[in-house]
Each structure stands twice: as structure tokens, then as C-alpha cells.
């Protein structure tokens, strides 16, 4: 391993790592890319389409080529940029997108078929024959496509998300960002400085510049140190601000532990939602290249990246120290690469500069007016062809730096439809007006790329931003810094017959752009899609402007006339794991537990998710081998004795006020204002469009106090609608509502022995049928002084009650009822038996109240009062709804052993199975232990007049046809005698 002198790596510590199974050594401060280069490894991957050998092209997050599969096992992560992967001891990486070894990729034959893979290839080739798409083309493309491979295992790491607030967010910690943060930090503002790198300094770390005659890296370190000492400044390295959202909200990902082998006790990454009063965009600039023939060989990279590797990482870009390095530049800045390499003792072939008047800035060979128009080297650059004054010659060359000028990183400034504007003096797009408000571009991101200009503009941006929020910041005394003018030629590519790459990652060449032009795909949006330019993981950061320039040349327009590329979030890829922020698996959403949950667990209950709730589904007993056995037992126990079921999940809303009755009259289709105190009434709510919405009960506890219930699923929405009605429609009514779902535990006590059981726990309360009849309600105490509400309502069709106590007593009440009813055979039952009982009784539930049904269909048409208005009343009478002839019916199989299947559609016997002959569908079904067969509920055309008719239920998905008989939906006790007993 060879290192140059200097650099910002810790040579005192050696880290070992493996690339494609071979061991190498690097140092803390290295990236994977710098460590590989230091080990003479140029070849790092293969291109997407042609499988061309590729090496590292940049030194930052814009990297198109050097992408690897990082780590192993479940942590394997594809498409990881080696240029931003911080080296750690034991790092394991593999190159990707090749079949067989990296240096002998079998898919490299794609390169020989390049003429067939031109722009629009997919659109042109795979259009016909149509039938081939699914069976042949798609599997073939999917097999060959994609870069790295996923682990296909669950992500073992933890992620988190958090919220931050500040006066000033500084995005980027280079010269401009440090100056901005220091200005604001010294002024006492709350500052967040975020930078994607692991070390603050930006380009100052990559250049050989001095500030006040001392190395710029020293200045960066001292500013970082001062900022770290300020309590009002938060430094966030390894943090990418990836998007600007409305009202000063910025999205950022902090890579908390990506620089470690495993995160250990930490989260791997954090998603930050930063609310900033103002922000400074100091994201720097990205260098662009100059396409020329065969410009994609390993060893050819951006000139600025080459400087970064030499200055920051003390690394030469060549495989062999003796191989000379060349620079191809259309601007003065590129010449610095030659100077910096020479200062480090790297042999320099010279600078090739197409400008006839190119300056010679040092003691190197200058090929003024020259271009590079050919390269050699199968797996790494070995020679370049220089053409100057009409003469061409080949030169041995181990690496080539390409300098085509710098593009300001305008990405975030264009997130709110802000359009970048072309700055002819810079030959680049700079942030325009109309971008995110409160975002102040500074430094190279604003086109102010010299060190002096960056420092100055960073400071000024901070002062201006803070002044807007009333914070006065004094000017810094800035160090003396280089302020070289930008001198460059509008030289965009070297014309030639061979392929010249524009977008490396997606293998888009100048020829592809020419073909897109020829095929009239000229607007930049069409160009992008036709050629796939800029559509790879790097989003064309190094390619887009060069492509625009080529298209501009072909159309004979200027670049701004040709178009601009604007950017959407994210700036760089953001993993879905961190966007989830750890809310995965059991943490995907909060779980709501009923008051009796732990008691039910102790009983061995099986639970089911109902919305966010966990409800007991059934309570298996020892010896029961099938869930049906358990459910049948529970349902029978209710009809024969007494059962207990936690029904807390039903929504409860407390409605109070002088106008409570009038308010409920307007919400429910039926009359509630006339309900007597101490009584309960079933209520049906409609949506304003006239369809049935939700059902429940209204209990009137006193003249101005009602308690209403909703279905479990609609507890939230119904309450929201009630508040809407109260605040937005009828604020003149004297009424208040509040959701009390979580405040009261509610237990259904159902079955002929329910009265006997409750009599054992109530405190001196007459439960006789005369004193407390069906649909009565009362407030009382139970268990010697516990506040309770009792409702004589029944979902099962049996004599039944629901008893509510403050939620914290729910579990104790359940235990007391079980104890008190042991000799009555009291049986806990779950949602499964609850469902059986309600289907047997013909009560509607979610499957019948699915948002597409009406009161008439449910057999509740008469409940919609004609005497008053209520939500949905007018629209329920419109022709389309009122004329619907489908009605709720019961269905039993002709063959008692057959099964009724929900979702099956109903047809007359012998009728064709088509939409036109469809007569309805089955909504719910269960095995009825009381009837000894499967039963169902469904909607059927003219259902109420077709009792006894035989129909066919067709379930074509499963190839089933079942003959069913139409019966009353009330399978059990149709007269309702039991519940009034």
C-alpha cells in the first residue's frame, strides 16, 4: 500500500477490510474508495447496461460508478457508494452487477451488442409480440437488471425519528456553511449545522489552500471546535438534509452508526424533521466532466475528486506509482489538480486544455488547444490519445482528471418549484427566485465558489437570514483566502465516432442523446425518459448539465432555452427503514388493549386485531382441538346460561347540554329527543349522501345527558363528525360532546341467567323485568360502592345487559363476575362467538354497514324519520337509493353439510352467472351451533318476498356453487321474546 505525504487519515491506526474477498488495509479517516485507491485498486464495479469496467469517479455523494454491496447477511446493503462509505475495521464489500468475477464479467458481452441497446431500446424492442412481454421479456430483463442484491432478510437494526427546532439551519459545513454557522452561533441564535460528511470543512479538506497563510484544514477544525463549544449550536455530521418541505420544515437523515461494523446499542440511522425559521443552503458544487471517446475507464475521474484523494486522503489515483497522471480541463481550476499532484510527488503527464490561450500555472506540460479523443486499458486506464493542432499521439497514462467546470448544488433551492437560472459568466445554473421561502443559498451553491467569496457569502447569508427574524449578528473578521476568478471555456464534449459517456451509471452516451434528438425526443423531460439519463441512483448529478449542453448544441439553442433540470426530494437516496423510523413489525402502530386484556391472557385467550385493538377472539379450554369447538361451546353457553364479553372497544360519546336531544335528532335518522330518561334506543346514522353509516345505542341518563355508542371501527370518525356538526353546522346549539371510549370498561353480560348473575353484584338495585325492562338504563353502584352504568340491551338476542365501570376497574369487575357466576356456569366469550350470536339474531355489523348499503336494504327503512331532518335524510330519498330493491335476508344451505361463503354472489337456479343476472351477495356467515348448520346473511333483490326460495351462491374464485334457501334474517327468536323476558 502506498500513501502520499500529508492527508487527514490517522496513520497511527490500521483498519483491515475486504473487497471481493481480498484483504486490504486503510486508516481511520478513509472512505472505502480512498482506501481502495491507496491499495492500487481502480476497478470497483460494472456499469448498468453494458457492464463496462468502472472505477471511482468522484469523491462524494454524487458518485455514479463505485457502488458496492456493503456488509453481509441481513445487513447486506446494495448500491452503497464507496466514496461516502466511512472505513471501519472489518468492513466487507463486494462489487456488483457482474456475472462471474469482476475482472471477467460474462455479461460484458452486452457491450458488443451496444448498437442494439441505444436510446429508447426498451420502448422499441419489447413492444411486440405482446404476449412475449409477461412470459419472456420481463423475466429476462428482471434477471439481468438491477445493480446490487438485497439480502432478502429482515433488517436487524433499529431506526428512530425525531424533531428539532432552530432559528437557523445551515446545510453544508464547508467554507460558506462554517462561516454562516459561526456568524449565527456567536450571535446567540439557535443553530443546527448539518453536513453529509463525517468531518466538517467541505472542499477546504480537499484543497491545498491556505487561510491567513495557514492550512485551511486548521481553520475548519478551529471553527468546528468553537461551534462545538457553543451551547446554542448543534453540529450534525454524517447528516444529509434531503428535502425542503412546507413552512420551513426540512427532512434530514443522520447516519448514526453506518461508520461502525454494527450499530451495537445505538440506532443505525435517525430521521430528523427540522423546523427552521431560516436556513442557509451551503451545499457546495459538483464538478462536471467533458465527454470524450471511451471516457469511462477506471482511472478517469473528476479532477476535483483527484485533488481530494491526494490532499485529504494522501492517495494517488493510479495503480502504479510510476504511471503518469494527466488532466483534461476546460478551465483554470482543473490545472490545480496537476499542481497539487506534483506537490505530492505524483508524476504528471501534463494538462490538456482545449482553450488555445490556456494559461500555464506551473511547471507541467501544457497541451493548449488540445483534446483527448481516445483511451486504452481494458480494466483500467493505460493510455490516452491527445489531439492538438490536428496531430494525434498516444501517451502512457495511469489516471486522468477531468475538469469541466462546477455546477452549484441547487437541488434544495428547487424543491418548491424554484427554477434555477442560467448564469452565463459561470456557465452554470444557480438558484433562482421562487424556491423555498426562508432558504438563503450561499457559497459555491450560489455560484460563489472561490474560498474568499464562499466565506463572505456564508457570513452575509446568515446575517440577512437572522435579521429577518430579529436577530442582529455582527460581521466576522474573515481570514485571507484565495479568490481566483473563474476562467473557463464553454467546451462541453469532444466530438467523435466512438462512444462518449455522459451518464455513467445508466450508460447514456453522446450518441444516445443525438439519437433522441433525431427521434424528436428533444424536450429535456423526453430526453431523460427516452435515454434514461439521470434516472439512476445518482440522479444524474454529474451528467445532467453536460447532457443539456449536448442537446443544446444539436438543437442550436442555448442551454437555458433547451431546459433546466429541477430536483425533487430526496437529495440522495433515503432508506425506507429510516423513513419508517422504527415503526415496523409490532411497532407499526400502537396497540390498544382492552381493560380485561391481561385477565384474558391469563385465561389463554386467542387475540385478534380489530383496528388498533387487540380483542379476545375465543377462549380455548384444555382438550379442545379446533377453534370451532371452542366457539360453539361459548355461543351455546350464552344461549343456555350466561356469558361475558368485553365490549369496551365500541365507541362511547358523552353528549351533554340543554340541546343534546335536538343535536342527536339531527345526527341520527331516527328520533332521539323524545327518548325518556332511563331508556335506551337503537340508532342509525346516515352519511350525508344517504347511505347507512353507523349504528349504536343512545342512552338518556338525564334530561340533558346522553351516552351514545358507535361501532368499534367508526369510534373515531363518528366522534369527528359529531364535532363537525357541533362546531361547523350548528354552533348555536347548547351541546358538548366528548369521547369516553377509553374511560369506561364495558362488559356484555348475556344469556338467560344474566339477571341472576348481576343481582349478585349490584348494590340494592331492583333488576326485575318490571323495574328494569328491556331497553332500560341506569346509573348505580355495584360491588359495594363502585360507580357503574347498566344498560339492558342485547346483541345476542338473549336477555342481556351491558355494564360499564370506570376503565381501571374493568379487569376486577370481570374477575368478580366470573367468581360470582361460577355456579351459573358463567363463560367468557370472544368476538368469534359474538359474531355467531349476532348472525343468528340477524343484527347488522361491519359487513352489512359497508358504506354501500341503505337503511331500507338493512330492513331499517322505517327508522329514517320523515318528521324531522337529519344528516343524510334528504339524500336517502333520492331515486337511486330509494328504488334499491335489495333486502337483508337469512340464508341456509339446502344440504346441511354445505358451507355458506361470505362474498359469494346469489343467482336464480339455472341463470347465467353474469352481472346482469346477479341478484345479491352474502355479507356474513358462520356455523350456527343452534341450527346445526352453516348460516349466512346477505342482500337479495326483493328479499323480503322470497322466503323459502332456493338460490345458488356462486363463488367462482374457489369454483364453488352452493344451493341456499332464503329465510328470515332472524334465525333465533324472531319475535324477540327472549330479550324482553
Amino acid at each position: 500500500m502506498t500513501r502520499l505525504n500529508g492527508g487527514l487519515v490517522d496513520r497511527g491506526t490500521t483498519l483491515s477490510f475486504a473487497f471481493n474477498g481480498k484483504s486490504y488495509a486503510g486508516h481511520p479517516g478513509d472512505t472505502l474508495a480512498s482506501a481502495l485507491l491507496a491499495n492500487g485498486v481502480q476497478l470497483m464495479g460494472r456499469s448498468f447496461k453494458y457492464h463496462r469496467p468502472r472505477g471511482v469517479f468522484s469523491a462524494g455523494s454524487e458518485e455514479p460508478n463505485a457502488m458496492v454491496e456493503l456488509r453481509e447477511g441481513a445487513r447486506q446493503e446494495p448500491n452503497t457508494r464507496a466514496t461516502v462509505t466511512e472505513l471501519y475495521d472489518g468492513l466487507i464489500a463486494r462489487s456488483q452487477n457482474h456475472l462471474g468475477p469482476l475482472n471477467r464479467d460474462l455479461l460484458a458481452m452486452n457491450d458488443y451488442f451496444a448498437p442494439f441497446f441505444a436510446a429508447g431500446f426498451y420502448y422499441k424492442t419489447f413492444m411486440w409480440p405482446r404476449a412475449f412481454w409477461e412470459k419472456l421479456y420481463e423475466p429476462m430483463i428482471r434477471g439481468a437488471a438491477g445493480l446490487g442484491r438485497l439480502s432478502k432478510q429482515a433488517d436487524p437494526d433499529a431506526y428512530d425519528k425525531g424533531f428539532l427546532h432552530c432559528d437557523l439551519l445551515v446545510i453544508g459545513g464547508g467554507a460558506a456553511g462554517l462561516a454562516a454557522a459561526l456568524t449565527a452561533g456567536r450571535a446567540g441564535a439557535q443553530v443546527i449545522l448539518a453536513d453529509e460528511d463525517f468531518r466538517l470543512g467541505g472542499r477546504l479538506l480537499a484543497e491545498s489552500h491556505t487561510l491567513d497563510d495557514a492550512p485551511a484544514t486548521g481553520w475548519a477544525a478551529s471553527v468546528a471546535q468553537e461551534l462545538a463549544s457553543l451551547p446554542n449550536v448543534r453540529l450534525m455530521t454524517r447528516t444529509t438534509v434531503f428535502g425542503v418541505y412546507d413552512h420551513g420544515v426540512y427532512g434530514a437523515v443522520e447516519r448514526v452508526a453506518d461508520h461502525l461494523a454494527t450499530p451495537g446499542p445505538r440506532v443505525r440511522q435517525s430521521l430528523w424533521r427540522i423546523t427552521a425559521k431560516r436556513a442557509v443552503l451551503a451545499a457546495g458544487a459538483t464538478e462536471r466532466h467533458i465527454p470524450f471517446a471511451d471516457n469511462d475507464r477506471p482511472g478517469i475521474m473528476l479532477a476535483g475528486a483527484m485533488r481530494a484523494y491526494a490532499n485529504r486522503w494522501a492517495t494517488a489515483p493510479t495503480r502504479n506509482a510510476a504511471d503518469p497522471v494527466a488532466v483534461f480541463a476546460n478551465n483554470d481550476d482543473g490545472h490545480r489538480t496537476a499542481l497539487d499532484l506534483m506537490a505530492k510527488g505524483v508524476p504528471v503527464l501534463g494538462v490538456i486544455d482545449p482553450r488555445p490561450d490556456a494559461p500555464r500555472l506551473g511547471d507541467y506540460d501544457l497541451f493548449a488547444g488540445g483534446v483527448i479523443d481516445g483511451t486504452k486499458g481494458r480494466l483500467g486506464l493505460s493510455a490516452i490519445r491527445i489531439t492538438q493542432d490536428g496531430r494525434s499521439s498516444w501517451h502512457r497514462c495511469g489516471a486522468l482528471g477531468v475538469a469541466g467546470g462546477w455546477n452549484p448544488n441547487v437541488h434544495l433551492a428547487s424543491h418548491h418549484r424554484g427554477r434555477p437560472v442560467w448564469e452565463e459568466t459561470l456557465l452554470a445554473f444557480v438558484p433562482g427566485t421562487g424556491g423555498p421561502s426562508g432558504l438563503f443559498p450561499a457559497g459555491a451553491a450560489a455560484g460563489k465558489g472561490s474560498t474568499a467569496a464562499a466565506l463572505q457569502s456564508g457570513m452575509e447569508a446568515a446575517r440577512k437570514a437572522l435579521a429577518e427574524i430579529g436577530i442582529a449578528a455582527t460581521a466576522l473578521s474573515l481570514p485571507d483566502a484565495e479568490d481566483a476568478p473563474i476562467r473557463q471555456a464553454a467546451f462541453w464534449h469532444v466530438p467523435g465516432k466512438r462512444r462518449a459517456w455522459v451518464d455513467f451509471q445508466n450508460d447514456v452516451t453522446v450518441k444516445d442523446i443525438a439519437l433522441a434528438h433525431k427521434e424528436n425526443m428533444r424536450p429535456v423531460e423526453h430526453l431523460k425518459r427516452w435515454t434514461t439519463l439521470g434516472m439512476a441512483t445518482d440522479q444524474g448529478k454529474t451528467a445532467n448539465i453536460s447532457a443539456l449542453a449536448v442537446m443544446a448544441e444539436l438543437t442550436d439553442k442555448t442551454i437555458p432555452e433547451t431546459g433546466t433540470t429541477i430536483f425533487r426530494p430526496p437529495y440522495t437516496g433515503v432508506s425506507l427503514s429510516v423513513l419508517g423510523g422504527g415503526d415496523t413489525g409490532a411497532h407499526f402502530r400502537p396497540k390498544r388493549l382492552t381493560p380485561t386484556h391481561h385477565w384474558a391472557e391469563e385465561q389463554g385467550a386467542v387475540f385478534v386485531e380489530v383496528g388498533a385493538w387487540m380483542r379476545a377472539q375465543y377462549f380455548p379450554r384444555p382438550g379442545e382441538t379446533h377453534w370451532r369447538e371452542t366457539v360453539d361451546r361459548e355461543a351455546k353457553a350464552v344461549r343456555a346460561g350466561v356469558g361475558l364479553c368485553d365490549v369496551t372497544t365500541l365507541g362511547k360519546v358523552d353528549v351533554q347540554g340543554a340541546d343534546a336531544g335536538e343535536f342527536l335528532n339531527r345526527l341520527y335518522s331516527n328520533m332521539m329527543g323524545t327518548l325518556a330518561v332511563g331508556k335506551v334506543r337503537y340508532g342509525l346514522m346516515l352519511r350525508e349522501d344517504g347511505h347507512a353509516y353507523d349504528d349504536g345505542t343512545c342512552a338518556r341518563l338525564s334530561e340533558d345527558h346522553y351516552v351514545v355508542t358507535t361501532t368499534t371501527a367508526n369510534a373515531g370518525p363518528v366522534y369527528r363528525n359529531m364535532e363537525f356538526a357541533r362546531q361547523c353546522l350548528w354552533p348555536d346549539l347548547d351541546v358538548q360532546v366528548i369521547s369516553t371510549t377509553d374511560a369506561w370498561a364495558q362488559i356484555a353480560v348475556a344469556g338467560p341467567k344474566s339477571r341472576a348473575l348481576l343481582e349478585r353484584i349490584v348494590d340494592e338495585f331492583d333488576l326485575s323485568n318490571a323495574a328494569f325492562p328491556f331497553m332500560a338504563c341506569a346509573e348505580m353502584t355495584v360491588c359495594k360502592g363502585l360507580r357503574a352504568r347498566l344498560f339492558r340491551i342485547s346483541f345476542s338476542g338473549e336477555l342481556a345487559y351491558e355494564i360499564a365501570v370506570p376503565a381501571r376497574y374493568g379487569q376486577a369487575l370481570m374477575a368478580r363476575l366470573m367468581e360470582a357466576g361460577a355456579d351459573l356456569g358463567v363463560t367468557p366469550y370472544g368476538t368469534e362467538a359474538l359474531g355467531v350470536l349476532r348472525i343468528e339474531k340477524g343484527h347488522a355489523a361491519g359487513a352489512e354497514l359497508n358504506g354501500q348499503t341503505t337503511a331500507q336494504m338493512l330492513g331499517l327503512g322505517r327508522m329514517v324519520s320523515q318528521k324531522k331532518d337529519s344528516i343524510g335524510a334528504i339524500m336517502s330519498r333520492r331515486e337511486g337509493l330509494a328504488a334499491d330493491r335489495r333486502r337483508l335476508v337469512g340464508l341456509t344451505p339446502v344440504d346441511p353439510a354445505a358451507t355458506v361463503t361470505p362474498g359469494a354472489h346469489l343467482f336464480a337456479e339455472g341463470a347465467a352467472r353474469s352481472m346482469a343476472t346477479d341478484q345479491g351477495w352474502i355479507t356474513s356467515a358462520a356455523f350456527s351451533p343452534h341450527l346445526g348448520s352453516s348460516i349466512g346473511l346477505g342482500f337479495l333483490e326483493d328479499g323480503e318476498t322470497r322466503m323459502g326460495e332456493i338460490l345458488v351462491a356462486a363463488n367462482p374464485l374457489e369454483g364453488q356453487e352452493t344451493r341456499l334457501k332464503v329465510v328470515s334474517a332472524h334465525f333465533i327468536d324472531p319475535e324477540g321474546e327472549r330479550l324482553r323476558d
Partner: protein
Amino acid sequence: MLIPHPLLGLRDSQEFTYLGDAALMDRPDPAGGNAEAAFTDYVFLRDNPAGVHRELWFHEQGDRSWLVVTRDTVTHEILGAELARDVKLNEEGAQ
């Protein structure tokens, strides 16, 4: 997005549930002539302006106020927020 709650100050939009056009507060007169047509418009037809829009937000994870928020749908700039209850009572007072 941040919503300036008239009672609670700037609140994150994640605390709110969105409903839509504030015209939903103007429920037609059920006893008026041609009520069905009026309700059809009320239930199904909404303006969808590119620009200033008055819309209803419910502070569900907060104080449960319904707000009328005036928002520019193009820029997402929020131009004001009022308690829906006040808006409705003022309208009724004005009539």
C-alpha cells in the same frame, strides 16, 4: 406544514385531520325548494381552485377544534386560520 391555530399557535399539520372545502359548513336548507338538487351539489361537487382555498382541518390530536384554514394550494402558504365555530356564528350573525 405548520398551521397557526388561533388558540394554540403554530402546530404541525400532522396533528390535524383534513376534511376539505369550507363550503361543507354551508349545509343546504332541507326544507328549501329543490332540496335534493341542493344537497347533490353540497355532497358531490367541490371547487378545486389553484390558489387561495378555504378548507376545514380538525385538530384531532389536539384540542379538537375545527378550523377554517385559508391556504394557497399552489404555494401551500397559509394565509390565516379561524375557529370554524366563530366563522359560522359570525356568518349567522351577519344574516
